[in-house]
């Protein structure tokens, strides 16, 4: 026994150093591109080419307002916010009440309803982009933010309902039953008791659905054509195309686009990790 312990101790120093080294390399790989982006955003046009990886000699703070104005980033942030919060405003209530019905109510056809929704988990939404585009065109919703809100919500419905069902199932059924005995209708049992209890589940979902909507590019690039309605990802790509030579401005735009989510992530890491890895980690 004792020989084992000393052996373990002797050999544990080298692996520990190796571990730190590996982790440090990994951290640099993960973070340095972001640092490089931030540094690049402060360089002047000339320095960008000559001083590739040094600190900016003379930080050009005006790159930020310049990029903001030229890229029309204000309106793009606003559009992204509208689309993201619109999506959340639809997804959260719609999926939680559906999940409530599926987990606590014994109505005929509920497995059918649940089964239909679960189908959605298997559908890779990227593949439906062109078909969705056609339907949006048919509905006369091309070039509207509403179209994005509806489609993002629809795509979130399946997975969110699935997660909320799992969440409600983890609560004791007697709580909902007690609420109904105490005088609640189904709706008030949901509204006054189940929904407040679902807050952790809702937070995780808000992160997942919100981040997905905020970052979505493919559909937005097809559906939105008017620069005044572009979301940030679409706006950034247009910016790249239009000011292909002004890299510091481009990097300033990228930095600004990245900041909100990055800040949220750093502030609420636990919720972010839980939300984004959601159902996967749960099981």
């Amino acid at each position, binding site marked *: 026994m004792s020989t084992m312990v000393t052996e373990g101790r002797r050999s544990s120093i080298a692996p520990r150093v190796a571990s730190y080294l590996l982790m440090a390399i990994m951290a640099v790989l993960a973070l340095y591109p*972001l640092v490089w982006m931030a540094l690049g955003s402060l360089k002047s046009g000339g320095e960008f080419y000559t001083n590739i990886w040094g600190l900016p000699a003379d930080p050009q703070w005006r790159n930020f307002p310049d990029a903001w104005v030229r890229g029309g980033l204000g309106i793009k942030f606003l559009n992204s916010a509208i689309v993201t919060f619109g999506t959340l405003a639809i997804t959260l209530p719609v999926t939680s009440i559906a999940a409530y019905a599926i987990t606590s*109510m014994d109505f005929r056809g509920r497995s059918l309803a649940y089964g239909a929704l679960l189908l959605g988990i298997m559908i890779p939404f990227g593949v439906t982009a*062109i078909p969705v585009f056609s339907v949006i065109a048919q509905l006369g919703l091309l070039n509207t933010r509403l179209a994005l809100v509806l489609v993002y919500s629809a795509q979130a419905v399946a997975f969110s309902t699935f997660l909320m069902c799992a969440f409600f199932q983890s609560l004791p059924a007697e709580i909902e039953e007690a609420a109904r005995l105490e005088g609640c209708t*189904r709706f008030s049992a949901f509204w006054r008791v189940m929904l407040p209890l679902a807050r952790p589940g809702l937070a995780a979902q808000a992160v997942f659905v919100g981040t997905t909507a905020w970052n979505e590019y493919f559909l937005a690039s*097809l559906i939105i054509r008017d620069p005044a309605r572009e979301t940030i*990802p679409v706006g950034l790509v247009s910016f790249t195309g239009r000011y292909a030579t002004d890299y510091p401005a481009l990097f300033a735009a990228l930095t600004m686009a990245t900041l909100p989510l990055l800040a949220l992530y750093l502030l609420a890491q636990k919720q972010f990790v839980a939300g984004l890895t959601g159902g996967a980690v749960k099981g």
Partner: protein
Amino acid sequence: MTGAPALSRAARARRLRTDLTGWAFVAPALLLFLLFVIWPMGHAVWISLHRWDGLGQMAWLGLDNYRFVFGDKVFWKAMHNTFIYAFGVTVAKNLLALGLALLLNRPLRGRGFFRTASFTPVVLSFVVVGVLWSWIFDPTFGLLNAVLWALGLQGLIQGWLSDPDIALYSIMFVDVWKWTGYHTVLFLAGLQTIPSELIEAGRLEGKPRQVFRHVTLPLLMPVVAFSVLLSIVGAFVSNYDLVRVMTQGGPFHSTEVALTWITTTAFRFNNFGKADAMSVILFLIVAVLGAVQFLLMRQRGRG
């Protein structure tokens, strides 16, 4: 006895009330889902049987579009790339993530920071990541070649995105870069569910490598399976953004993937019929993988 019919009417009324309330509660979710997920796919099948430019009249073609698709060299190239991409990034992400998770699962000081760092790229959008890495890969002004130069590795300097033999792998690297932290978290969660007594018991019996092979890995298998499927299905459809931003499918279709080619077909060539035929084919392929993933997830949900 006269009470009996009245009674069953009351029973039926209660049933009906429950049924109606239940359906009212699931209706908004179902409606959204049917309208913007199911209906488009059905619609796509219909369109794929026609010649259609997206605006004008549709003309019936039967299965001709599918014939065109199968005769389309670029489509095959794109499918080939899609598969290389999906399986390549899946293997790379999961191996790297597994290694990292094993590292981070040890009681090392500062692992919280490393975990935060490795998860950071997950939060970023593909567009930001794509634009950023396009410039890192830039042959003359990019960071990567500058680093290689500084390290005296001039021989490795490449046109990362302009060389048709390399471009696809460069993009795949970025995908791996963005997602490895995500899978690391999955594996870490899996590792934490393994009772430490099991590992310790194993350690008394054998070498660390054997412990890993015979104790850790088998117990981690459900998580591995899940993570692998998640990345395959994800990679089939999430490659669009990166390719679009970084190379637009070029050079010479060397980075063309199914989705970029579908989009080009629809919007550049105004051939929605053929684009939808390709969508349907891709849909079927990925749905099979998705079904497997879903079944796995259900199993985990129960367990």
